[in-house]
């Protein structure tokens, strides 16, 4: 019925069986291995607006793909051929860095993935993706922050806190654990005298604002600290364009490369809601994917020797319709891709229990059917990077998700 993609590396099923066998495993302080100087980092990139997974990593070997995805389907031939990953999947040609990392065993794809959310509202979908709760609601904390909060007290990852990149803090990293904030902006700064006075006033009158301002000032000092040439980064707009994505990654990498810098970060990139003229190998989506690819490159460069300990995961609230709509775009769907990159990633694999694209195989007759749970991927990363136990992950980090087993062995 379903085609299990054969890649040179273990299939998802094989991975899951290994994970199942290790289910009894408890807290393992793997993050602080003095022997090999391992100092892991995790970067979560949220792609808000619903990423078309079928135009990001195209199942070019599926006979039904080209017909459904029409003019915007990726193809191995033509003027802008997609970059083959294995015999079945190929990545959008706007992502040469990702393709290079994949070949080098430092990038992987989980395909036909979705969270537990099955409706098609962006905002509820993002709520579920970021809160880690079973359904939408008035969530005030995110799974990444709860993961931080559940690390042992005094642990250096927990002590350094998280990093939120962008003018507002994404829900995924909001919560009790400390979070730094930083965004690439260039306004003249008032100097320390005023800042200290305002901080003093907040400490007496408004502790919430005091904590936020303190973190903002700290992050700014760290990010600007080693710019010895006095060069400042000019903002090129928000995080919904390629230049902004690259810049925010550049700054975040600088903060995270520091020995006392945050080990965990969240970035939110906007603009993936491609209802009209989505484009395929070139065009609107390809431009955005090029920005994401640029962010991967900046992290690789900026983290330098820490790249080998780093895992980046890019996730989105849901996918888009398998069949293009009436306006050469795609509407809200279900299954999509999770992209993994970083020196710590056991890459070179597309992990997919491929559901197929025949009419009866589509979810609701319209979407790529989900066969992997995004939460399983995230749990696997948190387990293998930071040693969080399946019990904590299933209860505290992703409440009521014990049935979703961590996908193990995604990282070294």
């Amino acid at each position: 019925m379903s085609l299990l993609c054969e890649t040179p590396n273990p299939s998802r099923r094989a991975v899951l069986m290994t994970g199942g066998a290790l289910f009894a495993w408890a807290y393992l302080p793997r993050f602080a291995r003095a022997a090999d100087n391992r100092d892991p980092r995790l970067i979560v990139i949220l792609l808000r607006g619903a990423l078309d997974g079928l135009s990001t990593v195209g199942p070019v070997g599926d006979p039904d793909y080209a017909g459904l995805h029409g003019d915007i389907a990726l193809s191995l031939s033509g003027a802008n051929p997609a970059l083959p990953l294995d015999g079945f999947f190929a990545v959008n040609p706007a992502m040469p860095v990702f393709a290079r990392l994949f070949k080098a065993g430092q990038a992987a794809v989980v395909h036909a993935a979705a969270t537990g959310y099955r409706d098609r509202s962006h905002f509820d979908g993002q709520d579920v993706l970021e809160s880690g709760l079973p359904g939408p609601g008035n969530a005030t904390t995110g799974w990444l922050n709860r993961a931080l909060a559940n690390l042992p007290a005094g642990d250096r990852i927990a002590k350094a806190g998280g990093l939120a990149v962008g003018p507002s803090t994404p829900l995924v990293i909001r919560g009790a654990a400390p979070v730094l904030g930083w965004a690439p902006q260039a306004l003249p700064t008032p100097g320390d005298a005023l800042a200290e006075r305002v901080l003093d006033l907040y400490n007496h009158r408004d502790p919430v604002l005091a904590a936020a301002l303190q973190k903002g000032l700290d992050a700014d000092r760290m990010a600007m600290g080693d710019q010895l040439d006095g060069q400042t980064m000019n903002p090129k707009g928000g995080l919904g364009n390629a230049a902004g994505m690259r810049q925010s990654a550049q700054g975040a990498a600088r903060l995270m490369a520091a020995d006392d810098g945050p080990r965990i970060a969240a970035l939110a990139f906007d603009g993936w809601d491609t209802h009209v003229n989505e484009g395929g190998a070139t065009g609107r989506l390809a431009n955005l994917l090029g920005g994401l690819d640029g962010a991967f490159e900046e992290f690789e460069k900026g983290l330098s020797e820490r790249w080998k300990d780093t895992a980046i995961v890019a996730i989105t609230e849901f996918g888009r319709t398998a069949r293009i709509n009436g306006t050469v775009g795609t509407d809200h769907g279900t299954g999509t891709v999770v992209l993994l990159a970083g020196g710590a990633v056991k890459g070179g694999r597309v992990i997919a229990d491929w559901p197929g694209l025949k009419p009866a195989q589509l979810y609701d007759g319209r979407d790529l059917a989900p066969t992997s749970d995004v939460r399983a991927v995230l749990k696997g990363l948190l387990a293998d990077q930071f040693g969080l136990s399946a019990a904590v992950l299933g209860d505290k980090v992703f409440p009521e998700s014990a049935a979703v087993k961590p996908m193990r062995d995604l990282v070294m």
Partner: protein
Amino acid sequence: MAAPVSNPVPPDKALVALHRFGLGARPGDELGKIAADPRGYLKAEVKQQDITLIPPDDPRNAGLLDSTAAIQASMAAAMERKAARDEKAAVAMQPADDPAGPAMAKARPAVPRIEADIYRDEAQARFDKALAATPGFVERLVGFWSNHFCVSAAKAPVVRASAGAFEREAIRPFVLGRFADMLLAVEHHPAMLFYLDNQQSIGPDSRAGRRRGRGLNENLAREILELHTLGVGSGYAQADVTSFADMLTGWTMAGREGRLGEPGTFVFNPNAHQPGEAMLLGKTYPGGGMGQAEAALNDIARHPATARHIANKLARHFIADDPPPAAVARLAAVFTKTDGDLRSIALTLIDLPEAWSAPLTKLLTPLDYVVALRRAVGPSTGNEPQRSLRWLRALGQPLWQPPGPNGFSDQTDAWASAEGLKTRLDIAWQAAKQANDIGDPDETLASLIGNSVSAETRQAISRAESKQQSLALLLMAPEFQRR
């Protein structure tokens, strides 16, 4: 034993009127007088004739274009830009030793961005109105509805050109009118049809659909149900979305060639309309062109889920992130009883006891912060409105440019971020440095925050090392930032 925190003194009535409901105090405001009859002060603004409109007879607004003219200007500019690109490409194709090549490329200047000029003029008019408002409750309502029915200038040049006109044409006339009328005006407006992709949605069985093999785009239909009216989780299904999208096919904007009508205006194109009856929320709407979706819009405007959705959002905006259920219930009841009369709802908001007892805990949104700061500082040097627009971008709330069709967040958590606070500090400092005239710090404090100011804030301001620093401290004080 620690003193219970939960025995709050009711907030200062003048601050509730000026901050919770209004756009902030200006030097010269008499806070004592306002506190004596704060509800009367707010209601007096609501009663003013044409208070929701940008005054067209003000000479400063004489240059504002209606959406048709703005979109036509954008269409013409797009053609010119294309011609310039084509010419450049043709020049690049010429052999390098052709002397005409580089000279021609230099001779033609870059086509000016007419859309950016229109956007800036509209921003200027909006800021002018906000800075002059007393106390600005009506402008806050305009902002609320503009965010509820948002379009984004980032979508395309025609939306950048028409976003301001959209607010003046589809939002402002109805802010103290009927919700159903605002809904109909919004969904008929070219800016919205373009923003949510409906101008290209084609009924699969319509004449155009059969001929061109193009079809439905359900974006507008989904967001109307989810965001504009009923709210998510209120009981509609995917089939309702698809069916409503069918009804909305043919709602479009006339293109540049004018084949369907005056370019840039709303038109109903029967050739693109999905024929036949359609079902929404269990009710069948007989086929009949544009009236079909209009009938559906009129029905969902009156739906109890819409009343609850709107009531909840309003109470969250004006009272607290977790609004008191009694206040939400009261607003929903008035919405239903008055058939969505927004003037009655505005007056109900003013009368809600919760609005005068809940502590001032919400952080000003960046837009309201920039406006409050400009009102407090008064005339200053600097290039307006570009400066305010730049501040809004830095704070993450660029004008008429939300990240998605759900608009900007209305919750304190979204804005009380580390980066956000640091940027507010930078802006407060800039504003203080650029102020033309900073009066006596104590007097400024008395007229902007009044007697309820905390001892700590008063002390910090009086000990500042310069007038500029005292003003920046005031602009950062919790009493200024929270409402």
